[in-house]
């Protein structure tokens, strides 16, 4: 066991993936000597060379487009998009090419490309540096979408993403990059939690709280606070956003009868809406209350001095818990 920040766990996971498979490449802006703006790729170019850790021109569509070409040639590129708000120049290549090419080829082509996106707010950043664009990608068939919430998952999930033969959009909670946890870097891959499944991170009996990425920590804090009032909240870290581990979700909701979904992205047309609909369809007779959602507002992400009002925090999550118990 080693104590690692989430960023360092990502770094070690990427290093392991590169050691395990010489076809794994890393590409992005400022990922070489600088080690990425969050230092996730720190030291990798020094050890693996410029041909495998590629500082690219400053153009996101070019990063994904050339990664697709490299994947057709047999490589497994891991692309870094520097910030969430900068993925949109690459959206065309991701949506029209990366997601659809395996089907277009009737399965003859596989595109094992990972697109890493630091996401979410809470770091006092300027515009376009705090967004949560996951719903654009969960809506696109052909992509797997995952979000890690802690150093252990960061270390294992990035390696699972690299090993996947499907394109993976990999969200990293940027305000949790510096959170620490014990990580067993000697664990065998077959002991890891399966890639496309969620996990119950806190057992509870009265309400299920669904979260992913940066909001898992917030959800756990809310569950602890609620426990002081005698409410037993089960927290599920979804981890995989497409596909979602619905058997895990429905098992929990059938047990508790109440559900609150928390994400930073705007509530309207967000992933929470899809989850609420599915839970209602599948757990209708078990629900004691409507499925409630807590998330960002239908406004562009605000200037950072207002972000504490935009981002779900302990109080807003507990408010939703109160409302769920009010039915």
């Amino acid at each position, binding site marked *: 066991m080693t104590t690692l920040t989430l960023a360092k766990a990502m770094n070690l996971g990427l290093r392991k993936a590169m050691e395990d498979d010489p076809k794994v*490449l890393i590409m992005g802006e400022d990922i070489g000597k600088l080690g990425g703006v969050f230092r996730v790729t720190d030291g990798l170019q020094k050890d693996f060379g410029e*041909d495998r850790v590629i500082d*690219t*021109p400053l*153009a996101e*569509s*070019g990063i*994904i*487009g*050339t*990664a*697709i*070409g*490299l*994947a*057709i*040639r*047999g*490589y497994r590129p891991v692309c870094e998009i520097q910030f969430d708000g900068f993925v949109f*120049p690459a959206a*065309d*290549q991701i949506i*029209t*090419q990366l997601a*659809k*090419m*395996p*089907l*277009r*080829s*009737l*399965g*003859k*082509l*596989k595109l094992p490309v990972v697109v890493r996106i630091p996401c979410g707010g809470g770091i006092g950043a300027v515009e376009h540096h705090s967004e949560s664009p996951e719903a654009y990608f969960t809506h696109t*068939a*052909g992509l*797997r979408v995952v979000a890690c919430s802690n150093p252990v998952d960061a270390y294992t999930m990035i390696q699972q993403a690299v090993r*996947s*033969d*499907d394109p993976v959009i990999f969200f990293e909670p940027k305000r949790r990059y510096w959170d620490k946890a014990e990580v067993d870097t000697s664990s065998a891959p077959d002991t890891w939690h399966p890639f*496309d499944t969620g996990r119950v991170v806190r057992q509870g009996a009265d309400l299920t709280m669904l979260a992913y990425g940066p909001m898992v920590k917030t959800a756990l804090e809310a569950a602890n606070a609620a426990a002081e009032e005698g409410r037993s909240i089960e927290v599920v870290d979804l981890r995989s956003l*497409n*596909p*979602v*581990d*619905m058997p895990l979700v429905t098992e929990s909701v059938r047990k508790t009868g109440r559900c609150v979904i928390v994400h930073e992205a705007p509530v309207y047309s967000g992933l929470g809406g899809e989850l609420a609909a599915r839970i209602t369809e599948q757990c209708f007779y078990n629900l004691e209350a409507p499925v409630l959602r807590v998330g960002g507002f239908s406004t562009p992400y605000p200037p950072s001095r207002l972000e504490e009002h935009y981002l779900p925090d302990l109080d807003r999550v507990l408010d939703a818990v109160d409302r769920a118990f009010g039915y």
Partner: protein
Amino acid sequence: MTADVSRGAQSPPELVQLLTPEGERIEHPDYDIDLTAEELRGLYRDLVLVRRIDLEAVALQRQGELGLWASLLGQEAAQVGSGRALTDADMAFPTYREHGVAWCRKVDPVQLLGMFRGVNHGGWDPVEHNFHLYTIVIGSQTLHAVGYAMGIQRDGAESAAIAYFGDGATSQGDVNEAFIWASVFNAPVVFFCQNNQWAISEPLEKQTRIPLYRRAAGFGFPGVRVDGNDVLACLAVTRKALADARSGQGPSMIEAFTYRMGAHTTSDDPTRYRVADELESWKLKDPIERVKAYLAKSGIADQSYFDAIDAEADELGRDLRRRCLAMPDPQPMAMFDHVYAEPHALVAEEREQYAAYLNSFEEGAR
């Protein structure tokens, strides 16, 4: 408002040509080609057969057997010339109009029809033929070609990639990013632009105010304009560009100056935006007639050879028609295939639900 093209004006563009529209063989100081009689006859055969495939596909669309077809009429020489310059190990990334290149890469013509008939989104094995799937989003494939070329570099292989695109695509960000990537990584890729003068209804001057091949210089690699209706010149110029790429000299751009003699696709009506005289003037530069004239004048082929090729073309057309009509419609559940390479719970669930829904009708009928 239109651009004042006199600003930044340069010398008139040069055009590499080895065979005049009248069928006269001419020399060029930088590009030479020495083909056997059999190879020359082979190029003629390619041109005629490719045009026949295209003609049959247009007819099939008109009769409702294809939803759409993008005709290559007039661009046969650019495609056969560049396509025959490729070795088996080279990799081609086409748009949706490269039926002539597909022919050179030994893709069965009936496989080209699948996406236009609506039975699939691309029916051939891109790995087997080293001919990527057709790409409909304009210019996207140029980045794929560059990435593939970067893979060739990393493999230490002696091959190259070629990216096909049109004059309209040169306005796309992806094409410009592809130029930058290829340049800074010195990637073994050839950018083959078929300038057919029209991007649907928009003439070339809506895309550029300098000759397209001169854009290459700004990105730091050579560009050349070739007579795109001259199969010998297209072959010679592409061979050299590919050889340069394979030997580590980096990317280059070829502008094949040609003309889209037909509509953009079968859904288009060019009479709304261009004059008939333009088409007539380009008919005089037809890519096939000049080869035929040269072969006849030089005694490499005679009328009996031309007749034999015409007969072969007709048989190819008949065969293509027969096999197009015999193409089965896909089964409904096929749309769930190949969405993901690995098992995916959501697609599996929806597949199961839809199969049950369909089965409920069959059971009801019994």
